């Protein structure tokens, strides 16, 4: 079978892109390969590991379980929109200072989940944090410092009144 292609317009981090891609290509792969937004990582490609988590219309979703062409007409937000190296997002600062990562492969997805989670739960319990992280696999840290980083991030965001 020939490879069916489709041209769509995607809105990613506020910018408009027009891409012509195979219909079967996942959003994760188009972000990385066609838009060079390599902050989004691809782990298991079956929705388990959470590394590819991005926002669709502001809500965290797995970008490996979404065809890129399905994202047309929606707002996509990736980790690149959170902060920059010089100006980290408060959640990124908290991960940095609490050593909430080692190799960093799972971190972009976790950040996207945590920022959205803290929006809805500004003062979460440890149990709520653990449940919020359950959709992410980290093979390095044992999660202890990730949980601490989320607790610290909640405090930082509250102190800033955001």
């Amino acid at each position: 079978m020939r490879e069916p292609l489709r041209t769509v317009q995607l809105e990613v981090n506020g910018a408009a892109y027009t891409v012509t891609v195979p219909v079967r290509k996942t959003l994760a792969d188009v972000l990385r390969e066609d838009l060079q937004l390599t902050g989004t990582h691809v782990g298991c490609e079956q929705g388990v590991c959470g590394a590819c988590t991005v926002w669709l219309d502001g809500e965290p979703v797995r970008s490996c379980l979404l065809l890129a062409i399905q994202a047309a007409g929606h707002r996509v937000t990736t980790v690149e929109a959170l902060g920059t190296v010089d100006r980290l997002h408060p959640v990124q600062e908290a991960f940095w200072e609490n050593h909430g990562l080692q190799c960093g492969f799972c971190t972009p997805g976790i950040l996207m989940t945590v920022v959205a989670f803290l929006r809805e739960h500004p003062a979460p319990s440890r149990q709520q944090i653990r449940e919020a992280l359950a959709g992410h696999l980290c093979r390095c840290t044992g999660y202890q410092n990730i949980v601490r980083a989320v607790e610290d991030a909640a405090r930082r965001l509250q102190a800033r009144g955001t």
Partner: protein
Amino acid sequence: MKPPVFDYQDPASVEEALELLARHGAAAKVLAGGQSLMPLLNLRLARPEVVVDINRIDALDYLTEESGWLRVGARVRQRRLEREADVRRMVPLLAEAVRFVGHPQIRNRGTVCGSLAHADPAAELPAVAVAVGARLVARSRSGVREIPAEEFFTGPLTTALRPDELLAEARFPCTGPDWGWAFLEVSNRHGDYALCAVAAGVRAGDGRIQDARLAYAGAGPVPVRLREAEAALVEHSDLEEGIRAASAEARRVLQPDGDLHASSEFRRHLAAVLTARTVRLAWTRARTRSGGAHA
């Protein structure tokens, strides 16, 4: 891995979708939330020639109450059930169970009807459908039929849907005022597939259980309703005696497969323990006339 090559269709109307399913039959797969189909495509366990994406069909995005039934259209995401307080009032078991489905990232895309049509025997929503007596509305070019949940699930990942049919809607009966409902599961991590899950409902009257529903996930090839265990709850005037009899029945009748995560015997043990816990919880809720509504 990456999905295999397929032809992609995204009809804007139900009629167009049914036309595509009629034309392509078993060579087509319906794509709704994609939280079951996309992993199957990525793993190359499914190789449809045509993927029929129903996400553009706005007519399937409704969550309404009509004549005592909650009607859930095929494009309703699972997350929406958590966020609308009316669902907790109308079908409290559904609102409670949906939080056990995957993770928020999954439920933001995953649909109620998609989970039912995928028919994983360890999944929560099929067990809920069986417990409350949901009816599944299948549409095709040749008409509409309503399938009772207990007849809908015919085997692991297998349903009574024909290849030309679309699961257009799931209908859940709204709970009666004297009923209490409870859903509990044991899994390795929050959001993992249930090793065993139990959905229970009891109707309280004259200080005892007058009617009961018990359904199990992860305990057989399809979600199982145990009428013998339900009968045991009604027959015994003493609550704890009834619970003991129902739990023993669950342990005796259910035939779950064992795997890496849990042996068959351990799953039967969980079924018995969760039977007791869910019935006690459902009973408390029925007695407080809350209908299971809780924070």
